[in-house]
């Protein structure tokens, strides 16, 4: 049973079919990172009043930890009825996904969905919350 040729062909075909899948799946698709939009009326209004665009915490923190923060806010509001969030600069915010987060980021399609779709993440926020009407400037 000397059939090295056949076996190598099978292995190569297997490699190409399985490991090569991302290669030919991506052919013809632009490799573009998502670009988020921060130009909703509420954000522009905040910028006018405060001089800069800012979130409840610094950008880098929000990028990595927003899901944990939303979980903490949920637990705090639902279990402890505590709706006051004091951020790292000592500023207070109302803990509310719908009225605080989505008030500024009222552009789910150009904000939330951008990265989530890019990475195939399906957060279950929208299982309970209603996505607000898209507002863009």
């Amino acid at each position, binding site marked *: 049973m000397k059939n090295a040729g056949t076996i190598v062909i099978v292995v190569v075909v297997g490699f190409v079919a399985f490991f090569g899948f991302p290669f030919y799946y*991506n052919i013809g698709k632009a*490799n573009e990172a998502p670009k988020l939009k921060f130009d909703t009326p509420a954000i522009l209004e905040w910028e006018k009043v405060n001089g800069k665009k800012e979130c409840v915490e610094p950008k880098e923190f929000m990028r990595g930890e927003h899901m944990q923060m939303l979980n903490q806010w949920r637990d705090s509001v639902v279990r402890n009825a505590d709706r006051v969030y004091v951020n790292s600069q000592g500023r207070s915010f109302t803990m509310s996904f719908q009225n605080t987060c989505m008030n500024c980021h009222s552009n789910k399609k150009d904000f939330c969905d951008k990265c989530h779709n890019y990475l195939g993440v399906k957060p279950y926020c929208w299982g309970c919350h209603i996505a607000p009407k898209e507002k863009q400037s």
Partner: protein
Amino acid sequence: MKILLPLFAVVALVVIAFVGVQANLQAFFGIVIPYAAVAIFIIGFIVRVFRWGSSPVPFRIPTTAGQMKSFAPWIKQNKIDNPSSRLGVFARMALEVLVFRSLFRNTKTELHDGPKLVYGSEKFLWLAGLAFHWSFLIIFVRHFRFFMQDVPTVIQIMESLDSFLQIGAPLLYLTDVVLVGAVTFLFLRRVVMPQIKFISLPADYFPLFLILGIALSGILMRYFTKVHIVGVKELVMGLLSFSPVIPAGIGSVFYIHLFLVSALLIYFPLSKLMHMGGVFLSPTRNMANNSREVRHINPWNYPVHVHTYQEYEDEFREKMKKAGLPVEKE
């Protein structure tokens, strides 16, 4: 020392990647090493398989773990454990590869007072091995969401099933827990059981530590110290489209993870991890036991000149008659 050496090797790999990222060698650890590792993995894998494939296997040497096909029709053949057809071999191989059937028959030996030798069933190695391999496969396929521009629905379904308990945020993957648990068990087994510890080599511990390191760095990235995940996907997509980019601010844990994965890919074709390809080429598993039905002739047999009795008699007939020996043909 057999345990500490591979542990230090893995720690050294982590330190190398960490120091490299601090020294701004992101392009080296994010582009050069992954490309080299994948090339070594693919070429090495093919070379190893080619060598196995070109070694001659002239005769049927399957392990016969059941009744062989008999010419007596009332004896029932065990078609999977002693296959005589290609279909039987396929079933046997599929069960071996997918559910580790031969490991299921694993036994343990114990010496009790008396002295009494006791054999017993030992299923934990099979269970941990199965849990480990399957969760590793699921985790690998799940990673395809970082390799594809529009994540296919299959991958998304797989991911939502893996995280269906919806614990914490980001959602806890069950396979993460199972993999770490199984690898820890496979490691502890080598340390706790004296017989297994005695035969374990650094080459047994190194892959365990390496895979544990990969799993822990991945878990660290997902649940604890976050990395810039959009940047990670940009980097990976750059590699896959052969136009590599290094986005800023990804975080060193990612480079450590990537370097450990690269180390695994390079180590793969050089080590016992090649059982991934080797399991398909085990001659004791992948052959039909049909030695009674088919004559298997050794392909490199030297052509032996045979002198048959008829030829012998033709040559010596007269002399045999004279000596009074019986002949077949007058």
